[in-house]
């Protein structure tokens, strides 16, 4: 090789940094990091090379061949045009794109013509028409006519690959973005390329042309992935569409508005598209710090609750006939204010806020509680909770920012230990990050749980199996059982993630803190609901003020009294009651009124007691969107705005603020903070939370005026020992909610509901045999309160442990009165037939 071919250096060239190479693209010199794809380098220079299969977050495939460019190395041309999405930059490379090379241009035109041979060109009726890369590039670079005169290849259409996702195979250009996404990002390779050759097509095992023999057989598996909607969004043609959106609208008729997902605590960036005041669809927003370019199907498809027919749009007041009647705002407000004033001056008011509030609304609730109702009886935790949890949240979570633990730090962590946390069901985007970390960075992911769940499998995770309720002991003994994990946790950047289920297990938060102290690992708490983290920081808890100062801190109280222009000593100094305490007090007649915002009693550990408390308490004010068990029992119901109809901020689990503006303007719906502000005025108190903006400003001032105390150790709840109760004849219950279940924000979404994971009862083979349970056949768990039946499925749970989903569809708490870690009786058969079926087997005899 000689140097003669090389171009003489035009200038005193800039030094090529270590790990970089120098090349030219279209005659322009550029320095690029080694390993970068040519298409990416060109992009950085502003040179757009057309492409379909290339996606920056997917592994290169070179499937569509649209991005062909001419390449020569050291003056020697490569014999054929190269796919710029798979070829990496090299020193001395000369690349000519379609802009400077007739060869590349002709190659690209040829590929485009080939891609269009079998494409139906049905753009006028295609969902993608108007925002379609194939359409756009055909218009920009393609021919105006086709030389193909034969019959196009067609397929029956559309093909239902799940209840939600529809496939029009004749539109497909076989770029494999959808299959690569499913395989690489989601870990759900339920779709693949079938029938390679002239009939090549995307399909599932259900759609594959296969025969079954006469015997029992499955029909194949549909595209059952929590992330399937992303394939629609990245499809560069209209081959994948959703049953929800198909034929509903044209892209150019939609108004797009950036938004934030209201479902889980990840706080994904979204784009909400609406038309004539109705949301038509949601798409993933692009936010590299949080959700990259993905969202889960719940975030994408679960929004019809806002247009549910039964949505409450006017205030309701219970009349003398015992029914709710529509009333004017002033009338409802006056009635509510009168009753609340009476209650405040009587035995008091309790405030239950649910976990779905924005930071601003949560702040308004706590200010309403402390200033208007003069109580610390406020709690956002509409789920199992404990004093230990609250201590932990105060000490370890309140006030933390993404600098503590973030999505990015999960990728950098040498190990992530998930405790009582099932990421794919509880925070799907955290799951995607963990999977990415495991796949790309070699992060170890370990789980303290009961069985090898899909989260464990798809993050190449290690399961530290323990009995439900045995998580605390497992953590304390981790040094003996899994020394290597302790060593890994001691390394820089190690993370422990703890989920909301931890609150059901006495001693677990204390054990988490001990482990963190022993190893130096950072702890993050990932609640399931979008509003929980913000509510904590806003002070919607019985023990903390906004900004995380304890209510017992006289200095902090004084600072807030000054800020809020209250008389000195007017803020209540005693820590309030938690959710359970408030409900118990209401039931016992120790409270005269409850203010309830967005709480579903079935989420609480004792739904019956909760309903009883709502029945017994003198006055119930409900702030709600749709009829619920609370509105049924409320005296006054005030309608509030769903996320799309208000502005606000969700503070995600990282402590990152995710502000959003109003998507649907002027619907007449008002946010909670404004309702509370007006109500407080009726009670002769000013909250200054008329708008989310005002509420936020007030929150920031409040948070800045108090100081958060140094972290204190968490005391294990005393019940820890009691958990080892008599287990004779019983099995232990492990349970959590699946992502797609009967949650109230998922109503009116039948296509989404169809992609829910089947509700099954999982247990190991030995336990199944002992109880005469056959896989696929029904099994029943029962307590004194009631029973639940599911088809049985074998999984690697510990002996005498069963797992069931918490609300798919029946609430476990409601049906059985126990939750995760509880004891239940297990038998074969369905609930109704179980009694007789189990008699002869002597099952009850053994359990008695």
């Amino acid at each position, binding site marked *: 090789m000689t140097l003669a071919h090389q171009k003489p250096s035009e200038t005193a060239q800039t030094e090529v940094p270590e790990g970089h190479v120098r090349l030219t693209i279209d005659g322009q010199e550029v320095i690029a990091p080694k390993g970068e794809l040519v298409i990416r380098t060109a992009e950085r220079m502003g040179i757009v090379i057309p492409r379909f299969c290339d996606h920056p977050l997917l592994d290169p495939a070179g499937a569509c061949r649209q991005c062909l460019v001419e390449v020569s190395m050291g003056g020697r041309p490569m014999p054929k045009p190269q796919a710029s999405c798979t070829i990496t930059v090299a020193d001395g490379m000369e690349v000519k794109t379609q802009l400077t090379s007739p060869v590349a241009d002709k190659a690209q035109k040829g590929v485009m013509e080939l891609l269009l041979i079998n494409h139906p060109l049905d753009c006028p009726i295609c969902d993608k028409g108007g925002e379609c890369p194939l359409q756009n590039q055909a218009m920009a670079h393609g021919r105006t006519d086709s030389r193909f005169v034969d019959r196009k290849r067609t397929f029956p259409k559309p093909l239902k690959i799940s209840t939600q996702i529809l496939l029009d195979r004749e539109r497909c250009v076989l770029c494999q973005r959808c299959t690569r996404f499913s395989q690489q990002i989601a870990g759900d*390779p339920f779709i693949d390329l079938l029938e*390679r050759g002239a009939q090549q097509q995307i*399909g*599932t*095992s259900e759609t594959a042309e*296969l*025969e079954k*023999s006469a015997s029992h057989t*499955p029909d194949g*598996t549909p595209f059952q992935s929590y992330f399937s909607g992303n394939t629609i969004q990245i499809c560069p043609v209209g081959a994948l569409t959703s049953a929800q959106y198909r034929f509903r609208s044209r892209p150019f008729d939609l108004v797009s508005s950036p938004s934030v997902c209201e479902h889980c605590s990840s706080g994904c960036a979204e784009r909400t598209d609406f038309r004539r005041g109705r949301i038509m669809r949601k798409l993933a927003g692009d936010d590299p710090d949080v959700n990259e370019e993905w969202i889960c199907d719940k975030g994408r498809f679960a929004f019809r609750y806002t247009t549910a027919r039964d949505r409450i749009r006017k205030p309701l007041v219970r009349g003398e006939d015992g029914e709710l009647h529509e009333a004017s705002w002033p009338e409802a407000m006056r009635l509510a204010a009168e009753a609340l004033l009476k209650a405040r001056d009587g035995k008091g008011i309790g405030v239950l806020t649910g976990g779905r509030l924005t930071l601003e609304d949560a702040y308004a609730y706590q200010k309403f509680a402390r200033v208007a109702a003069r109580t610390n009886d406020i709690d956002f935790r509409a789920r199992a909770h404990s004093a230990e949890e609250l201590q932990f949240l105060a000490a370890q979570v309140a006030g933390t920012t993404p600098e503590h633990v973030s999505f990015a730090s999960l990728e950098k962590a040498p190990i992530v230990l998930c405790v009582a946390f099932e990421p794919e069901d509880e925070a799907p985007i955290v799951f995607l990050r963990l999977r990415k970390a495991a796949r790309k960075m070699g992060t170890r992911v370990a789980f303290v749980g009961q069985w090898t769940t899909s989260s464990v499998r798809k993050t190449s995770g290690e399961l530290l199996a323990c009995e439900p309720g045995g998580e605390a002991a497992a953590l304390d003994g981790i040094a003996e059982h899994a020394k290597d994990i302790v060593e890994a946790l001691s390394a820089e950047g190690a993370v422990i993630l703890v989920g909301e289920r931890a609150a059901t297990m006495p001693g677990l938060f204390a054990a988490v803190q001990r482990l963190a102290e022993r190893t130096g690992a950072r702890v993050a708490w990932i609640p399931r609901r979008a509003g929980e983290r913000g509510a904590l920081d806003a002070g919607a808890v019985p023990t903390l003020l906004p900004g995380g100062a304890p209510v017992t801190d006289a200095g902090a109280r004084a600072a807030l009294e000054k800020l809020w222009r209250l008389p000195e000593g007017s803020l209540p100094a005693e820590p309030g009651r938690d959710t359970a305490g408030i409900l118990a007090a209401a039931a016992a007649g120790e409270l005269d009124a409850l203010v309830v915002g967005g709480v579903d009693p079935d989420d609480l550990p004792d739904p019956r007691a909760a309903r009883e408390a709502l029945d017994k308490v003198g006055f119930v004010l409900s702030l709600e969107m749709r009829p619920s068990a609370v509105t049924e029992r409320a005296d006054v119901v005030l309608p509030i705005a769903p996320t799309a109809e208000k502005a606000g901020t969700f503070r995600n689990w990282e402590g990152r603020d995710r502000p959003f503006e109003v998507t649907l303007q002027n619907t007449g719906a008002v946010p909670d903070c404004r309702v509370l502000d007006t109500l407080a005025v009726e009670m002769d108190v000013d909250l200054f939370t008329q708008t989310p903006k005002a509420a936020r400003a007030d929150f920031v001032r409040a948070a800045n005026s108090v100081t958060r105390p140094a972290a204190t150790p968490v005391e294990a709840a005393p019940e820890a020992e009691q958990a080892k109760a008599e287990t004779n004849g019983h099995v232990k219950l492990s349970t959590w909610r699946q992502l797609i279940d009967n949650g109230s924000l998922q109503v009116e979404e039948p296509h989404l509901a169809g992609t829910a994971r089947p509700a099954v009862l999982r247990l190991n083979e030995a336990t199944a045999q002992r109880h005469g349970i056959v896989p696929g056949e029904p099994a029943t768990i029962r307590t004194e309160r009631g029973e639940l039946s599911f088809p049985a499925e074998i999984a690697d749970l510990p002996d005498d442990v069963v797992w069931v989903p918490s609300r798919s569809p029946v609430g476990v708490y409601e049906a059985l009165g126990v939750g995760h870690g509880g004891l239940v009786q297990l038998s074969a058969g369905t609930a109704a037939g179980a009694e007789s079926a189990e008699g002869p087997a002597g099952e009850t005899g053994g359990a008695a």
Partner: protein
Amino acid sequence: MTQAPETVFGDDIVAKAQELKGRYPESRSALLPMLHLVQSVQGYVSREGIAFCAEQLGLTEAEVSAVATFYTMYKRRPCGEHLVSVCTNTLCAAMGGDAIYKKLSEHLGVGHEETAGEPGEPGSITLEHAECLAACDLAPVIQVNYEYFDKQTVESAVELVDKLRNGERPKPTRGAELTDFKTAELQLAGFFPEDEERFAADVDGPSAAEETLRGAALAQERGWIAPPMPEEGSRG
């Protein structure tokens, strides 16, 4: 009363599947032989077969379906006792392969990948036209369960399938003795008779034909050798 659903694939097949899995560093590599194993049981790849492979290898059924629908040697409809493949690639076709296929199709009353008789029953035959069977020097060729019948004519082909239908097992021109489709599939899956003699007879028959070796023999006779490779660096 309920019973576990009968599985098509018994313990011996599970053991064989596990053995296949152990033969490769990446378990997914065992998929190709495992699909043959499935065919050795059912005579085709059914939905159960797909589910079985997926379960054994920790793949999804879609991933297994993708492979099973790629290769023509995986049959998606139940096959007969014998699989008769007629080469209709260029050379064989010109030498009479097309005529043979046409005649057999008429004679058996079936088309491509269709079965004359009840699939799996004795004497049933699945017919297919095949791509190149790698025996152009012996064209036109037919394979029965992948064993060669060379230099066929329309008449000899009809005679061959009639014998097969009568339950006879005509001797292939070369290679091993004729068995049936399922047995051949077990061999393709990588399971051979342990007995040396049976192995030699059933599997390892002499497969070279005189025509195949004629060129080599001529070259040896006349002392022809390939020209030397150009030395490294002396190119151009």
